[in-house]
């Protein structure tokens, strides 16, 4: 009797999960469906689950359309995301290692100064950051889009926590062998800390690719648009070619899906050990 109840509960849970999973996938389906449809199939009052024809040519049409700087914005996003990820990994891992392992009298004070900026919501400083970047003459430049975002207190914090828990024996052996901090770091620590680099790198890459407010503020010329800004400008434009908009959005998430599928394990691990719990 009880057994049957437990089994019924389990089945119910599975049904609920499958229903929710389908619901979560609907937006992705719509993105692809509309991206590969004709304009009529998107706006038809008789909406159907499947479009009347699949138009793969929409992708080529998007890149052929010279009135929209889509290819350029895609390239900008790629450059920004890669540069931000590499720069953040180098800067934050060095700082995290220094804070965790190099004895210095005021290390704690420096650490708290870093930590303090985590409490400052990044979005709230966008007005003064805009002021600073514009006074450097960096508006509408890739510099202006990349450099200010390289100093992630979050990444530094994750690296420091990770290195604190790193076994000391390896480094001690390296020091006995006469390696200084610099070579110990590059030859011993980095190769052994690949998981945390992968986790932080993936999170930073997703964040850089998806960020919107800062590129919107800084990328005023079309030449400095990121893919998010370009998409947003299509949605607020007077005349919208819907199928082009949707295929652009679908293309814009492809690199992310690739990164996501390759590194999903690391994202989960990174989120779990990001010091949140």
């Amino acid at each position, binding site marked *: 009797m009880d057994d049957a109840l437990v089994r019924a509960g389990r089945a119910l849970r599975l049904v609920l999960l499958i229903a929710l999973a389908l619901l979560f996938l609907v937006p992705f389906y719509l993105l692809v469906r509309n991206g590969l449809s004709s304009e009529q199939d998107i706006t038809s009052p008789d909406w159907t689950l499947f479009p009347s024809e699949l138009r793969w040519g929409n992708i080529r049409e998007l890149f052929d359309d010279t009135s929209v700087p889509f290819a350029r914005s895609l390239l900008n996003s790629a450059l920004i995301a890669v540069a931000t990820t590499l720069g953040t990994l180098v800067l934050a891992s060095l700082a995290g290692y*220094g804070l965790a392992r190099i004895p*210095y009298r005021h290390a704690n004070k*420096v650490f708290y100064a*870093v930590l303090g900026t985590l*409490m400052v919501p990044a979005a709230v400083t966008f007005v003064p950051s805009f002021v600073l970047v514009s006074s450097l003459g960096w508006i509408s430049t890739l510099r202006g889009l990349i450099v200010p975002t390289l100093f992630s207190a979050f990444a530094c914090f994750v690296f420091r926590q990770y290195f604190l828990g790193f076994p000391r024996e390896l480094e001690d052996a390296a020091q006995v062998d006469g390696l200084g901090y610099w070579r110990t770091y590059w030859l011993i620590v980095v190769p052994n800390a690949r998981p945390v680099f992968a986790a932080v790198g993936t999170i930073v890459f997703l964040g850089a690719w998806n960020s919107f407010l800062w590129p919107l503020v800084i990328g005023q010329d079309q030449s400095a648009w990121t893919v998010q800004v370009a998409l947003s400008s299509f949605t607020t434009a007077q005349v919208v070619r819907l199928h082009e908009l949707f295929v652009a959005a679908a293309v814009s998430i492809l690199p992310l899906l690739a*990164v996501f599928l390759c590194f999903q394990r690391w994202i989960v691990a990174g989120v779990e050990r990001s010091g949140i719990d």
Partner: protein
Amino acid sequence: MSSRTVAGPATGPRAGGERAPGDRTAAARRGLTRRRTLWFWVFVGPFAAGLALFTYVPLLWSVGLSFFDAHNTVTPTRFVGLGNYTAMLSDGAFTGSLRTFLLFTAFIVPATYVLSLALALMVNRVRRAQAFFRSVFFLPAACSYVVAALIWKMSIFNGVRFGLANTVLDAFGAEPVAWLSTTHPPWYWLVIVTVRLWLQAGFYMILFLAGLQRIDPVLYEAAAVDGARPGPQVLRHITLPQLRATSVAVVLLLVVNAFQSFDEFYNLLSDARGYPPYARPPLVYLYYTALGQGQNLGTGSAGAVILALIIAVVTVGQARWFGLGRTDADG
């Protein structure tokens, strides 16, 4: 992202030279300390300098600028004292945007909390295809607010008849709804809340899953021995209390993120004709004040400072209220 590890002070670096042999002179030890200090700054210096330049300088600049008249310029022109602050606080549009935010937070925080916890509880207990379900719910985290807003605005919740939501309504014989422009009843809330729910629930589900996996199974066995019925009783007396630290962190992150919402509001509601005055969160308002046509950077800065203070008060207050410091110790 604050946490228990945040609250604990750094396990301080060991004092230099503690293992120095007895014959080492004081001068040599001082040399070692100096060398370590140098290396510390080689490692930490570039990061610290950048953080100072791109976070601390803008902050201080903003506070300074908020006391000045600064239209269309980044150079303060005329000292106005607290004028910008009183202007912002008596500006109905700005205070209205704060009210909008409060309402939005009151919706989205409990909704995300319940959904992500429910997903975690179900995914945690499913036997087959656990990784599949986890991926599906986490997948939206790889999607940007811009893309999600596009799907919501142009495909699900269109005002015209071709949207998915209106197609479904039509199947039930109901009249189509102009989702984004209907304020009575506030149908646009449904659009705003569901898009954020979809994007962030999976992320918080992961946090809850991590918390669930740390709960000692012995607790559940003991509860079963004591005759607790699986389900609500176990949830209330074991699972939820054990998830306390995670819950505090989740609520904290949810509130701070809601405070900073910008992307989906901007992309859902603005169009070629501008931005409607309803549903305007503070960041959207500041964006238009400081960088819109007026370029009023003085009052924009004052608004940013006010917003930062509110966030600080809420964050610290919530941490105190839920005893973030205490859960640190017994976690």
